[in-house]
């Protein structure tokens, strides 16, 4: 039997007794990193291609075009026997890891999580500051308390009054700029979702889509989830509480924010959540794989079933 095995420093052709032939890589971290990168992407190296004529046994699906898949005898060789030391391996692996991290950083669908969480933080912070501003304003007036009222405030003529006035107005301006930041980030998320997941955002709305994709870790991952999982994304704590302590199971997570569920009578929310999750699941598959726009038909079907559920006397 002739076997083929690729190590980080070269490709080996061997049998039960000895190494019959080999192709070593250049002793350069960059080139070695490039070879391993190609392999990890499922590619076949030219050095591997070279041994194809020997019809070797291989144990990696990646090499099914080179040889026969089967059990491969373990090859005991180490780089240093051929002058490839650990330092070269370390440098090559650092290069490779950095390259793959850069690829990861470039994925917008990973970064959308940060935008969604920033939006949540802005909303939280804005609400806290609004309440503070109104509390402060209460000392100066019997009515009002909106941003415009605060911006028009007159505290008094003393030196400290002027300083106080400036500070309370600064607070109002801060809130105005936070509100603008919120609009901007919502727009960004909306546009991103229309491009990244047109079907899901059409069915569920941009914000819910962004949250679902962020939670799943990408549209591809969301597309692999069963509808039941999508229904409960974001309700993990309630789900685990249910599993652990036997509290009632949650009916919905992130998708609760959808008007269709939020506005439905309590006893119908579970059914509607199931319906919505099913449609999102189909939409996500279209966005991730076929890229066809099917949201219109999906939505029509969904609305018909929704009407049925709402009308039905059954609980």
């Amino acid at each position, binding site marked *: 039997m002739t076997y083929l095995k690729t190590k980080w420093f070269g490709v080996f052709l061997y049998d039960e007794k000895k190494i019959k032939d080999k192709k070593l890589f250049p002793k350069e971290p960059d080139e070695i990193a490039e070879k391993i990168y190609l392999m990890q992407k499922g590619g076949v190296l030219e050095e591997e291609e070279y041994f194809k004529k020997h019809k070797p046994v291989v144990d990696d699906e990646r090499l099914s075009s080179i040889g026969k898949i089967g059990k491969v005898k373990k090859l005991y060789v180490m780089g240093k026997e051929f002058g490839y030391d650990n330092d070269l*391996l370390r440098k090559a692996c650092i290069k490779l*890891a950095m390259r793959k991290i850069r690829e990861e950083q470039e994925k917008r669908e990973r970064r959308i999580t940060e935008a969604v969480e920033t939006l949540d933080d802005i909303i939280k912070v804005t609400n806290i500051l609004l309440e503070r501003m109104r509390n402060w304003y209460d000392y100066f007036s019997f009515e009002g308390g909106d941003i415009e009222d605060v911006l028009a405030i007159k505290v008094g003529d003393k030196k400290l009054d002027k300083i106080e006035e400036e500070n309370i107005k600064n607070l109002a301006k801060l809130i105005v700029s936070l509100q603008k930041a919120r609009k901007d980030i919502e727009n960004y998320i909306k546009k991103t979702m229309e491009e990244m997941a047109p079907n899901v955002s059409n069915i569920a709305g941009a914000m819910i889509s962004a949250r679902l994709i962020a939670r799943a870790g990408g549209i591809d991952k969301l597309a692999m989830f069963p509808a039941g999982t999508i229904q409960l994304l974001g309700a993990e704590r309630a789900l685990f509480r249910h599993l652990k302590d036997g509290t009632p199971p949650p009916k919905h997570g992130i998708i609760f924010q959808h008007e269709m569920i939020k506005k439905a009578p309590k006893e119908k929310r579970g059914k509607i959540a199931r319906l919505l999750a099913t449609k999102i699941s189909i939409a996500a598959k279209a966005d991730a794989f076929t890229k066809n726009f099917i949201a219109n038909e999906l939505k029509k079907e969904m609305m018909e079933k929704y009407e049925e559920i709402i009308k039905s006397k059954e609980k």
Partner: protein
Amino acid sequence: MKKIAEGIFKEGKRIFTENLTPGKKVYNEKLVRYKGKEYRSWNPYRSKMAAAILNGIKEIPIGKKSRILYLGVANGTTASHFSDIATEGIIYGVEIAFKPMKKFIKLCEERKNMVPIFADANKPELYEAMVEEVDLLYQDIAQKNQVEIFLKNMEKFQPDKGIIMVKARSINIAMEPKKIFERVRKEIGRKYEIKEAIKLSPYARDHIAISVEI
């Protein structure tokens, strides 16, 4: 400072390793000088291996020349202590999350016996080419299928020894940790001889360290 194992020292209730890169801290641990050498305090609340040592694990299968495959290396907190001990060996650190990996790469630039592998430990075939003979597989991965990952990698790399830090709550939140540990021991015991099983409380809740031999 008393030597308790190769490269590991104890003073009072704390354990230390000799700093491979003197003057540098990895995770804001305490640096201590003793007889002209610098030691790094090994924090059992941050590192499960330190917890296992303090809880009395009998065999610590790491020495000067150890070759270690470390799955779930994260920032490299524990791995940095391995790197202090295995000065003539090598530590391959596998991690899938890119944020901790960024920190780990920095560490690998400073410590010549560490190699970063940015990959999924579920797919050992993707890093098989980089990992040369190893004598210890060490795993700390909080995933539901952590035992499957461990067995898959043991099978692939055939090290003499393996240590897995089992986190019960990642496997099943609803089941009692005791039952999970029993089940895990059975599952691992079918393939490998279990040498020790050590609870990591109070340092880490619902965790045990299981060490095996081929």
